[in-house]
């Protein structure tokens, strides 16, 4: 904020010499103040959110302490609450979603940006934006009515027959559970990855491609070794946008995850996510401790998002340096 406001006026020689009053009269200062307030409101809302979650969960925090993160029991009647199964479910479903969505999304983005004719690319982009705007409850319905039966009757029995020796594919095939939730989430976040990655790939300067081609590389080599590394930071950004959506998704997940606070290595097992349990139980949570434990779960989700976002920043910083290094080579 401050760097841009000091560098911008200095670009015009006259601006710096004007007095505050004249800047106020001519409106520059007013615009600066107003836009500053708008920008500051984002920070304010974030702080307010943390404050409210922190205040709202005071009883639960004091009662459970750090054991909240390690407790597996969620029993409203006994007043015992632990976040572990919900953290587990949130992370597992998001990881499954990314494992599916990242290769698919980036592959599609490469096709649209590098290989497809402009008209095809633009038409498909229209559909992708449309998909990104579909409300999550619709994806939930799609998941419940289409993906769940498909999983139960075809995919899960097949996985069991072929990969059943792995701990991930054991147990009864209900059709719902971690794997199904991950797949529905993947369907939801793919449009984000494609859309953002395509834009980033398209913005890679033309001379990068031409230089690679001039050096005798094939089309694929120029794409994979030059264009994609150049756009790496942006692609990472799209992945973390997708991760953020997957972590916080509520409606679609609760419809297909099975809503059972269980921790299991098997992806066929029903599970639960943080956002889903808050949405399910908050309206009927009575007493003092129970709603507070749910609010504390909200705080945990916020923390989880915060940590993952921080990691993402570091990752982007690290890889963008490497990316530009490769661009220079």
């Amino acid at each position, binding site marked *: 904020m401050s760097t841009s406001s000091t560098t911008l006026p200095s670009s015009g020689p006259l601006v710096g010499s004007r007095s505050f009053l004249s800047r106020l009269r001519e409106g520059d200062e007013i615009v600066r103040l107003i836009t500053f307030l708008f920008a500051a409101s984002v920070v304010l809302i974030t702080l307010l959110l943390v404050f409210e979650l922190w205040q709202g969960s005071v009883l639960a925090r004091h009662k459970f302490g750090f054991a909240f993160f390690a407790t597996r*029991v*969620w*029993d*409203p*009647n*006994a007043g015992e609450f632990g976040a572990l199964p919900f953290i587990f479910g949130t992370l597992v479903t998001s990881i499954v979603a990314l494992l599916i969505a990242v290769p698919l999304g980036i592959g599609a983005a490469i096709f649209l940006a590098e290989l497809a004719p402009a008209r095809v690319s633009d038409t498909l982009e229209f559909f992708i934006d449309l998909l990104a705007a579909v409300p999550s409850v619709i994806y939930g319905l799609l998941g*419940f009515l289409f993906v*769940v*039966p498909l999983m*139960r009757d075809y995919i899960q029995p097949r996985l069991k027959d072929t990969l059943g020796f792995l701990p991930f594919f054991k147990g*009864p095939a*209900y*059709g*719902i559970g971690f794997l199904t939730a991950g797949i529905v989430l993947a369907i939801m976040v793919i449009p984000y990855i494609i859309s953002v990655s395509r834009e980033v790939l398209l913005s890679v300067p033309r001379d990068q491609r031409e230089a690679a081609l001039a050096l005798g590389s094939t089309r694929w080599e120029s794409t994979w070794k030059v264009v994609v590394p150049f756009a790496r930071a942006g692609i990472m950004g799209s992945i973390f946008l997708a991760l953020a959506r997957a972590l916080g998704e509520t409606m679609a997940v*609760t*419809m297909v995850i*099975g*809503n*059972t606070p269980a921790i299991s290595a098997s992806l066929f097992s*029903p599970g*639960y996510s943080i956002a*889903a349990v808050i*949405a*399910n*139980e*908050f*309206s*009927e*949570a*009575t*007493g003092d401790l129970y709603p507070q434990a749910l609010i504390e779960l909200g705080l945990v989700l916020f923390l989880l998002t915060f940590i993952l976002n921080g990691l993402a920043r570091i990752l982007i910083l690290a890889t963008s340096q490497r990316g530009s290094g490769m661009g220079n080579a």
Partner: protein
Amino acid sequence: MKRIAAVLLAGLGLALAVLAANALTITGAGASFPYPMYSKWFDEYHKKDTNIEINYQSIGSGGGIKQVTEGTVDFGASDGPMNDDQLKAFQDKHGFAILHFPTVLGAVVPTYNIPGVTTDLNFTPEALSGIFLGKITKWNDPAIAGANKGVNLPGNDIVVVHRSDGSGTTYIWTDYLSKISDDWKNKVGKGASVNWPVGLGGKGNEGVAGLVKQTANGFGYVELIYAIQNKMPYGTVKNSSGAFIKADLAGVTAAAAGAAKSMPDDFRVSITNAPGKAAYPISSFTWLLIPSKFSDASKRDAIKGFVKWMLADGQNYTEPLSYAKLPKEVVAKEMKALDGIQ
């Protein structure tokens, strides 16, 4: 542009005029189970007395108790009676008590999807608690088969489905299981959400019904109204007199009548596993929660007027919407209790 603005202004004016004409708006919040009934009643009552408009938000029983305790609404509504701590919290905050008024009755039924079985199954209390505790895992378990002679039950695993969202339906179901099984009472207990020993969670009646319908050998519980309206198969349940009762509105009212004799003065009574030959055992009242004192006399009179009407003429609207009406013993008792509102 100008024309649009004029139309908007006229609309706003009209809305304000309508608001001004309705001198009295009463707000309530709470249970979602009786919401279709309440919204019909409030609508009909508004037609009868256009000066009174009752605005009800179905935010859930827990929310209803919370809001009426905080004083943000004029009355609350709940599928489970308030417990002693909650009553005390209200008394401490306001200095007077809150009263319970039963309005209609609901019931919860066991529903299932067993390929090849089309007859109504009979469930004993032992079978229901055993299945939900995870002790009975196969359909051909003697505890189930014993009550269903002649039905060819498969040896498949039962897929138990319960509600994942906190709900009055779950409260009634677990209240019943707590009464008939000490094991359930000690291990799980009753509540809008509990720590389920087994099973998958579906969101809402439609979530449970959907999972049961989709999953072969599925077994779950839904509201009677939902089962009737969606023509779902549901089983009979053995009541405290030993008779297997298929839930219907008459059976639910019978359960309430059976409980009416021992009805406490504050109406906080559970009628699950109620006495009576025809009583359906998994039934419950749903209650309005009304403060015993109003600072605004016109509001007090309006609410009392509504409850009086609801107990008399209002009960005729219940059966078309698949709610069971109150037995007359309870109506008479409530009429008396209305005097307690000052």
